């Protein structure tokens, strides 16, 4: 892997803006989809930029993730492929979610290119909007040390924070680089040619950056194992599981913000689930002595898990959106990890790879069926 190291006195975001500007100027892309701070200054949205003068106002790597980039791209390509060449500037998990959604036919990747950036993690949404200035300052330190106390738990246990398993076209690296160094790494031959058109010849070694990643990866993998083994005890058995989700108010925000939950109407909002005659509830209450309203809270979470667990990219958007601070992303990531291991699958790592539930092998999984003759 080769790259080009540039130095930027004004930080990572400024360096990326420079690259974006020249890509747009040279007409290599028609538009750029990139996070930008809203006028009030308290949050960020995705902006589809056609005017190169607007690039100055964007923030390629914002401190929070209020909107999962895959959702923005899904909206953009809802009616099929774009005729414009678009470059999406995203965190690695957002790129993976976009690719996963393309397999589910919710995103069309034709004419879409991705630029991913080494991700230090994002702050908890609620913390940030309460005091954006304080967290903007903290973020500068986070970008230096590549870790911080206020980073979301999902980000602390993320092991794909750089180019690992991320099918982007261009990657911007920062981990392990000296003070002002930023490394530009083309991940495909086309993007190599593309970069040479804006006079970025990628011929330098990337060892410094890769060593940095390795160190961070080790630490994060440790965090991950620790978090999962702690979690496993907390959610084992119906009683624990029920306690884990006991604060849930059935708002279904976790489903609505999930990039993978694309169904226009979720089963749990459908008439099959919602329009139930009172008599039905009475008979359930009679069987148990009583039932809780709103009903089916555990059913919702387990049902969602069984539907999207295999494709969960672990972005943590669900946890950010939870008004009751249920640590939902962690249990979903834990389960997703287990499910994906069964099929040696990593969602979104490859544009061509099929989702395991859409394919099969004739000779597999015999431990889950009873094939042999019974006694």
């Amino acid at each position, binding site marked *: 892997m080769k790259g080009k190291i540039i130095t930027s006195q004004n930080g990572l975001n400024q360096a990326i803006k420079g690259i974006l500007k020249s890509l747009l100027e040279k007409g290599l892309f028609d538009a750029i989809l990139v996070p930008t701070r809203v006028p009030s200054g308290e949050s960020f949205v995705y902006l589809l930029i056609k005017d190169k003068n607007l690039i100055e106002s964007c923030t390629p790597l914002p401190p929070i993730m209020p909107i999962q980039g895959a959702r923005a791209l899904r909206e953009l390509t809802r009616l099929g492929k774009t005729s414009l060449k678009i470059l999406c500037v995203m965190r690695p998990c957002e790129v993976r979610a976009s690719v996963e959604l393309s397999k589910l036919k919710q995103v069309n990747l034709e004419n879409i290119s991705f630029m991913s950036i080494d991700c230090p993690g994002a702050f908890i949404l609620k913390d940030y909007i309460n005091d954006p200035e304080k967290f903007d300052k903290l973020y500068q330190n986070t970008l230096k040390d590549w870790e911080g106390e206020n980073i979301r738990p999902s980000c602390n246990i993320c092991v794909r924070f750089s180019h690992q398993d991320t099918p982007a076209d261009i990657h911007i690296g920062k981990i392990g680089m000296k003070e002002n160094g930023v490394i530009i790494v083309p991940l495909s031959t086309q993007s190599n040619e593309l970069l040479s058109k804006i006079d970025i010849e990628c011929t330098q070694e990337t060892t410094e950056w890769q060593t940095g990643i390795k160190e961070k990866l080790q630490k994060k993998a440790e965090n991950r194992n620790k978090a999962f083994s702690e979690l496993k005890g907390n959610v*084992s058995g119906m009683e624990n599981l029920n306690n884990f989700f006991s604060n849930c108010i059935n708002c279904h925000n976790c489903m609505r913000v999930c990039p993978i939950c694309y169904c226009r109407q979720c089963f749990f909002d459908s008439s099959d689930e919602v329009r139930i005659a009172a008599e039905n509830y009475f008979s*359930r209450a009679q069987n*148990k002595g009583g039932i809780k309203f709103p009903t089916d809270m555990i059913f919702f979470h387990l049902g969602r898990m*069984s539907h999207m667990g295999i494709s969960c990219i672990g972005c943590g958007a669900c946890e950010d959106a939870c008004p009751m601070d249920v640590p939902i992303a962690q249990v979903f990531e834990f389960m997703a990890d287990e499910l994906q291991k*069964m099929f040696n699958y990593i969602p979104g790592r490859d544009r061509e790879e099929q989702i395991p*539930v859409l394919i099969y092998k004739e000779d597999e999984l015999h431990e889950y*069926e*009873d*094939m042999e003759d*019974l006694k």
Partner: protein
Amino acid sequence: MTEDSLPRIVGFLCKWCSYAGADLAGVSRLKMPASLVPIRVMCSSRVNPLFVLKAFLSGADGILVTGCHPGDCHYQDGNYYTRRRFALTQKIFKELGLEADRIRLSWISASEGKRFVDVVTEFTENLKTMGKNSIKAEIFL
């Protein structure tokens, strides 16, 4: 033994094989415990993981998903998808400590009336030793 002490099994039977197998068991006058509530589906791959979850959370003691033998699916490959989906569902049960043995996947062909009886009998015996599904009495779910 009274009927109350029998476990309740919700069975999803594929129309082309297992349901016909169950029918054959009846026509052949084979005896089996009256523990199964059969639900006919057009293919075992019609069984959404939600069906299994809903039955389990509603207090069914066992959930049985049955279909044609691999390779014999009326729709060529439906039961291969069933197997993957079922494996994922059972994995979730296992990892969450939710008595994964209460759900079971079996292949029963239209000519295997005897096998149908054996599967239901064995599953019923297993469930008897496991006892009632405690979720049945759980109010706060």
